[in-house]
């Protein structure tokens, strides 16, 4: 199975980020390259009574970030994070669509759980804290329907930026971010759009999300030392740390970007997805489907394993994931898996579900731009089954010509995407 011969190349011309530890692109990159962790005891509500009480929160005030009172009233926090990230990305790209270009400008946003926080807060009101099954609709927010339907996320961005082209919300659990950028890439490649705002957002730090992951013991119970709670690939890891955030990229057809003299961060070189057909949350140890996604993405990018400069791992910090993923890298890259630097930024900014894939793609673009790769923080002890180079604790300067990022999501989704330096080589 191969993709079509791609004549239209797609490049990244803008990056916007709202993340824990840094509310814009530069602060995000500083946090990552300094190896600072942004995980802490939850402050958005009182987490007492939950098994896991730590998270990576964004220091985000929507009004100070420039949103209007109306936007704050209309939209859940996940949409607010996305609006601010998108503003930065669009400004960064210098792209201003006129009426003609607007029909060729679209939005694809990923989110795993949408407006779950507002849905829960509103539920508490209309149900009298769960007393009533037949909830009283009259007491709900005027924007309760916008919370029910996560299509609001991409619509909010389309309205803000006047995008009249294809608009979509993609929700494939924790691969939503990669899959949203992947769909945006395909829409530009296929000529359905010239410019796409593509990214993802989630703001899931709420009681119901905490309780959901508590129930399956996926999140860490290490509440005593929040700063060191997220320990991907470390022998003593104890589960993931929930996070929140948003990242939006401006994807653009290469010649379109060149004509307007845009700054080009990198090229989207390959994207592939597979499902494991195995289990909603379980992963087989062989990493087969993730390795197939990686292999297909490399084939599309026409890159050999030794041409991958860096891997941004899913690296959630669960035993099952870290071993599954390590096996997938070995299967897809062979001996080269031992040579390529691999890191998980979830060690610093937590796991923001659908958003993290977009944050990781933003990190890949910035890594190519800066010729540096972020570390895996909190790494201290080698796991016998995780024996690759996880760039422990300290960022590394090296030529980053291409970066591979992978994601693994509830539902069995396995996705891979490759960014690379723009070269003049004809494909």
């Amino acid at each position: 199975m191969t993709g079509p011969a791609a004549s239209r190349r797609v490049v990244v011309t803008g990056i916007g980020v709202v993340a824990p530890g840094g509310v814009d692109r530069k602060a995000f990159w500083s946090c990552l390259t300094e190896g600072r962790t942004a995980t802490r005891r939850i402050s958005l509500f009182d987490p007492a009574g939950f098994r896991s009480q730590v998270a990576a929160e964004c220091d985000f005030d929507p009004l100070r970030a420039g949103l209007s009172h109306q936007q704050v009233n209309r939209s859940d926090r996940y949409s607010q994070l996305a609006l601010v990230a998108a503003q930065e990305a669009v400004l960064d790209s210098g792209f201003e669509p006129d009426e003609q270009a607007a029909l060729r400008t679209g939005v694809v946003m990923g989110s795993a759980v949408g407006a779950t926080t507002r849905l829960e807060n509103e539920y508490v009101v209309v149900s009298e804290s769960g007393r009533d099954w037949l909830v009283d609709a009259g007491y709900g927010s005027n924007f309760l329907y916008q919370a029910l339907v996560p299509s609001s996320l991409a619509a909010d961005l389309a309205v803000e930026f006047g995008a009249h082209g294809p608009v979509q919300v993609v929700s494939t659990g924790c691969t939503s971010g990669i899959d949203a950028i992947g769909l945006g890439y395909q829409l530009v490649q296929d000529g359905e759009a010239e410019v796409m705002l593509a990214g993802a957002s989630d703001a899931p730090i709420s009681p119901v999300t905490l309780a959901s992951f508590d129930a399956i013991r996926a999140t860490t119970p290490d509440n005593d030392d929040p700063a060191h709670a997220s320990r991907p690939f470390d022998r003593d890891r104890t589960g993931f740390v929930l996070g929140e955030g948003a990242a939006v990229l401006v994807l653009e057809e290469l010649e379109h970007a060149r004509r307007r003299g845009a700054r080009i961060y990198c090229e989207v070189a390959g994207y592939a997805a597979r499902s494991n057909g195995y289990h909603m949350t379980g992963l087989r140890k062989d990493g087969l489907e993730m390795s197939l996604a990686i292999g297909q993405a490399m084939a599309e990018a026409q890159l050999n394993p030794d041409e991958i400069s860096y891997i941004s791992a899913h690296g959630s910090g669960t035993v099952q994931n870290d071993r599954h993923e390590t096996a997938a890298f070995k299967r897809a890259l062979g001996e080269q898996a031992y040579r390529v630097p691999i890191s998980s930024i979830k060690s610093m900014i937590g796991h923001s579900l659908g958003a993290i894939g977009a944050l990781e793609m933003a990190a890949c673009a910035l890594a190519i731009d800066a010729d540096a790769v972020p570390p895996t923080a909190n790494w201290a002890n080698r796991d016998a089954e995780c024996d690759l180079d996880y760039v422990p604790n300290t960022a590394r300067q090296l030529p980053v010509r291409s970066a591979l990022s992978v994601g693994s999501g509830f539902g069995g989704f396995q996705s891979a995407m490759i960014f690379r330096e723009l070269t003049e080589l004809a494909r």
Partner: protein
Amino acid sequence: MTRRAVITGLGLLAPSGSTPDEHWATVQEGRSRLAPISAFDATRYPTRLAGEVRVPDLASLIEGRLAVQTDRWTWLALLGTEYALADAGLDLAELDPYDLSVVLASSSGGNAFGQRELQRLWSGPTRTVGAYQSIAWFYAASVGQVSIRYQAKGPSNVLLSESAGGLDSLAHAARLIRRGVPVVLAGGMEAPLSPYALACQLRSGRLNPATAPERAYQPFDTAAAGYVPGEGGVIFVVEELEAARRRGARQLYGEILGAAATHDAAHTGWAPAANHGYYAAALRLALERAGRSPDDVDLVIPDAVGLAAPDRDEAAALGEVFGGRPVPVSTHKPLVGRMYQGGSALDVATALLAIRRRTMPASVVPADPAPGCALNFVAGGSAARLDTALIGARGFDGYNSALLLGSVRPARPESEAA
């Protein structure tokens, strides 16, 4: 050469029926399937009618453990997939799992399941939910479960464009087929009837409070006052044409000829008065991409949301695309309710059945057409020509989608079952 995407199987679960034949009969007889909500006691809600899927004890049709782990929404998707594969006569044992993808649309998630768990969390003595909340409520739950149960390991996706995604899922299926995937399970499924989900829908201000089914959803009529919700939808088997022919597919319902999506970039409710231009652009783009002209279209199935301003916009968009030609228009949404993503999927099924039977689907005709909305609503009956149908769908907050379907023009005789 472009790989062509054809639809070879339908798995239909709707208020109008649980088989294509039942659905078709409901449409042709114009029989309303709206009734008081039975999923819960809705008597205190301003909207009490809905279209429900009438499969008794649906949960019993799902294997025990799986039924407990999933919402009704996922039961519908699993059962719809079962029906679709059976209808297509597709033997999964002969298919490489990586050659099968799942792309479904829904506007929300596992609503009733999620509400039960929220109730437990907030009213119970401990701050806990059950082990399956993490996999049952979220938007990818149905696609994940379908991919596991049917070993669909190709590139899959979940699209959430409110009511437009039933069409978007088929557009994406065609995109995957062009890119080399042989078979895609696509479509849309919804289960929006839980007390909290209904409360959320009521806040949109678009639901109709009527208690008489014939007054509950009257698109293009002067009496238009919103819609009532419906549940269900359709799962389609979409295949690459040559592969479908090679395996001797039992039927080729139709081909996905073209698709397009645009956005109004305006919030619903705040849209300018005359705002049909971007919807018209989507309809035109779908035709353009298929290399067809408006004159080639034999049937239009519109979004028909049943609110004065959007109905007028939709009629204006059709006027703009088709000029003075009174293109035949048919809608059966008033019979089943607005099924969101499942509704646009059901419109596709109706168009495919109409093309296959060379028979116009009987439209619900407004008794008193609103100004500007006097479209050519068709009665059922055989059609001299019914090869090409254009489906329009609009999602809340500005989504516009269009899909052009056509009969499969055989390069050689179809290998149809006698």
